[in-house]
């Protein structure tokens, strides 16, 4: 079940809210937990047992760890980390490892390939694994006491708003809210949460999906048929597709959470106005960046080691970030690519950007980012290299695929809003839109806009698979 589905928007969500709002305070967590278990089971009916089992194991393991000190405490933390990473490695990366081993075995004729039945990838595993690790580590570091009740821990791990695609909510950020969030359960948050949810829905359905349809078409064409200009158009469109898709989903998650009294951290902050890659990673998937910083980069030494070691740490963090996104060499290369530019920022690029000015820096950074997106979007490494060579081949002879007015209009709207934060006015409008207190008139206007956005989005969702023939075809 995804947020932008009819089932979620008109069945699960309103009925969950009704039951949640009508319930007494002491039952609200349980209702949210049951709803989250149902939500997860719907998408992963068998894996839910693994998740619940691992939640139970982890809960008691960390309870035990919290009662110990010294070496034993470290050992129990290690067990928790290995256990959770082991699950992630098994479900997400074992197919990848086996496939690579088989490639080596067959290429070098060392042995027959290993026979292996592909493991299905459970939804959200990357996200809740990181949440479990943050719980274990935060308790270890004594940043926060562990939960007293298993139900509270279970709710933290599989709370449905951010289960599938984040933001990655850390234990320390949310622990107190799970225990008591009555102060945040007010009409203001409910309304603002609703508006935020619909904004996210509209970003995903009306911008990302529209761009995605044509991007998919362009990427499916034989590469020789695409000219250089269309190659650039395709990847630019993809850069906005992925931005509005991901940030839209984060908006929906943050909005739903706000409606039930939770305050989730922001995950995106106008990433394409970044003036360097370092800044990009402070604006794109912010919660992942912070998680990696606090739980990987800093334990590796952070900035408090030699320059060479810092660069090594950065690269390891970004290689692993890339791999976290998907079990494929493309993602590893994407991560390494960003790691390289982070290092180059520290070496000399930041100085260059400071000399060439804001506008040029933004353009260069954006180009660096979209070249990286080629690896992210392509299925195979060879596809990525072919696409990149097309982008830089200056070949303009091929036939032009047709993209209608709708595509260009939506792309323009996407570009406008993505870069509107460049100016202070644009930034202030965004903040006012999302966070400020609305007057009655503004509330009514916002409600009407929300209603319209919801209606148009649902029209689009419901029609997406409907493309009838006029007559039966022989």
């Amino acid at each position: 079940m995804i947020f932008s589905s009819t089932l979620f928007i008109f069945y699960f969500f309103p009925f969950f809210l009704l039951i949640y709002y009508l319930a007494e305070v002491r039952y609200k967590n349980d209702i949210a937990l049951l709803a989250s278990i149902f939500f997860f089971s719907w998408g992963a009916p068998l894996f839910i047992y693994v998740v619940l089992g691992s939640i139970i194991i982890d809960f008691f393991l960390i309870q035990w760890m919290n009662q110990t000190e010294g070496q034993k405490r470290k050992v129990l933390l290690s067990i928790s980390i290995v256990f959770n990473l082991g699950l992630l490695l098994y479900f997400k990366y074992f197919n990848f490892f086996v496939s690579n081993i088989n490639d080596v075995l067959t290429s070098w004729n060392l042995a027959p390939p290993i026979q292996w039945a592909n493991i299905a990838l459970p939804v959200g595993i990357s996200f809740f694994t990181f949440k479990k690790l943050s719980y274990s580590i935060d308790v270890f570091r004594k940043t926060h006491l562990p939960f007293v009740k298993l139900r509270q821990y279970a709710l933290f791990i599989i709370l449905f708003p951010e289960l599938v695609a984040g933001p990655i909510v850390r234990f320390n950020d949310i622990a107190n809210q799970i225990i008591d969030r009555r102060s945040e359960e007010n009409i203001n948050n409910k309304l603002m949460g609703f508006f935020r949810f619909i904004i996210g829905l509209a970003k995903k359905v009306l911008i990302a999906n529209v761009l995605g349809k044509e991007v998919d078409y362009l990427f499916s064409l034989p590469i020789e048929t695409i000219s250089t200009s269309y190659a650039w158009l395709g990847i630019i469109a993809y850069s906005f597709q992925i931005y509005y898709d991901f940030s839209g989903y984060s908006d929906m998650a943050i909005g739903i959470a706000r409606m039930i009294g939770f305050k989730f951290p922001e995950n995106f902050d106008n990433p394409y106005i970044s003036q360097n890659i370092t800044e990009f990673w402070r604006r794109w998937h912010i919660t992942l960046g912070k998680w990696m910083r606090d739980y990987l980069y800093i334990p590796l030494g952070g900035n408090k080691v030699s320059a060479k070691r810092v660069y090594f740490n950065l690269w390891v963090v970004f290689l692993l970030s890339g791999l976290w996104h998907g079990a494929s060499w493309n993602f590893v290369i994407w991560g390494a690519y960003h790691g390289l530019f982070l290092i180059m920022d520290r070496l000399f690029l930041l100085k260059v950007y400071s000399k060439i000015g804001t506008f040029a820096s933004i353009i260069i950074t954006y180009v660096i980012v979209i070249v990286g997106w080629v690896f992210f979007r392509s299925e195979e490494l060879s596809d990525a290299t072919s696409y990149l060579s097309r982008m830089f081949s200056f070949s303009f002879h091929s036939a032009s695929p047709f993209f209608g007015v709708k595509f260009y209009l939506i792309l323009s709207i996407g570009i406008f809003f993505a870069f509107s934060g460049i100016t202070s006015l644009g930034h202030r409008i965004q903040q006012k839109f999302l966070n400020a207190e609305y007057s009655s008139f503004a509330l009514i206007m916002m409600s009407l806009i929300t209603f319209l956005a919801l209606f148009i989005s649902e029209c689009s969702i419901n029609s997406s698979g409907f493309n009838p023939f006029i007559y039966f075809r022989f």
Partner: protein
Amino acid sequence: MKQQVNFKKVIFAFLIIILLIPFTQDFFHLFEFSPLNGVFSKTEKPKLTLDEWSSGSFQTKYEEYLEQNIGLRNLFVRANNQLDFSLFNIAHSAGVVVGKNDFLYEEQYINSYLGRDFVGEDVLNSRLRKLKFIQDTLKQKSNIDLILILAPGKASFYPEYIPDRYNPEKKTISNYDFISKRAQILGLNILDFNKYFLNIKNTTKYPLYPKCSIHWSTYGSMIAADSIVRYIEKLRNIDMPDILWNGFEFSDTIRNTDYDIGEGMNLLWEISYPRMAYPRISFKSDSSKTKPVVLGIGDSFYKNFYYDDIPQNLFIQNGFWYYNKEVENSNDGVTKQVKQLNYREEIEKQNVIILIASETNLWRFPFGFTENAYDLYSYSGADGKMKNYRKLILLDPDWCRKLQKRSEENHKTFETILNQEIESLIANENEFNKKTEKDLVEMFEKKIYFNEFLLSEEIKKAKQKGIKLEECIKIDGKWLFDNEFGFVKNEPTIGHELKYYEDQIKNNPELMKAVEKKAKDNKISIAEMIRRDASWLLEDAKKKSNN
């Protein structure tokens, strides 16, 4: 402050109620919306079982089912389609293109007009020559007239509204261009309504082709019907019942197929269209009038005649074989497949056989009839191939001219060159017949892959179906094979089974001796004796297979 809070609560409650409207509509059906039009598949409500739940299949099917059945669904779809049409000229109906001034086309009509689906001179020549062979044979043997009708294509009729992105100025030879010209040269009985409608386009009072339809208008189809009747009368020297034109009705409600694309677009409100005229016709018949037995074989353009009772009033036993596959309007009212019929028997019942197609179907016209009928009426036996090719060549003036020129250049007699040509054709055919179905399907797959237009269509189709391009090409390669060769190879009719046994007898000298003796003893022709013995063999084979 409290007032503000209450106001916010009201707004929020209102927003939650909005989320519950589709669910409420589902149960209480408070609003009525017109059903959606077109051909589409519907998902059944899935049954919840443990296995279905565990595999995730119940969830997937249930979500699909819900999307299709949620309250207000029809409104959502129509609103979406209307928005995209009004703002962006997008049509959410498979294959539909919005042209200039909101003229609607099916894309394949545009592609056919522009020559993008041209199957090649060789293929069309082969079919047209065989049609001429069949036309002459049927006329000689059974006084049956074969008439080809080229129905008008929308893109041909309204090229001025084709969107610029199709580069209409880059038109190349189309199947219609080739067929219309060659059919005349070969002497086929042909009525070219594409050309006729274009000739009278600017002089008719009412639209011959509607703005939002695939088919000719009711008015246009009546003009065509009138012309067809006069043509049959001249061809057969008969006087058929008269069609009387008693003026026109102008209706606010569009009728028949005059808005079929528009309906399929499922919009909130109708696209504006010019006033349509509906002729008031009646029929005048008496004992002096002759109604021929007519069989129509072709696409849906023939169906338009049924709306105004043309076949019912002017023909006897007005059969129609839709795409040479489905029997419509059969006398017993039962829907049948053509392959269930005795093909030869059905053909020989007719006085007139009309083969009709619009421009977009000319790449496969006439839908396997040529292969079916040629197989039945061509020469068989040891020298059958030679006789057939000889006849095909001699029927074609262009081919004869080419061979005549070759004979002069090589200083050989025409007969020698003719025999060489026949030998070469037989050798090619024998080579071709060695190919397996797998070879032929691969041939079609390659044809798709190396044709820019066909490949782009496959990419679109693969994307729509959510399958890989290679898989889509395989499916369509097989489909092309079935359409080109399946009429004889894969879907033999009863007539073909009989012919198989007739050929078995003719190719066996000992059996032929026995047949000749029996024919003499029974005082019937050898051909009739062969047919009787073949029928017996067929019945015997069927009994054995049933046991």
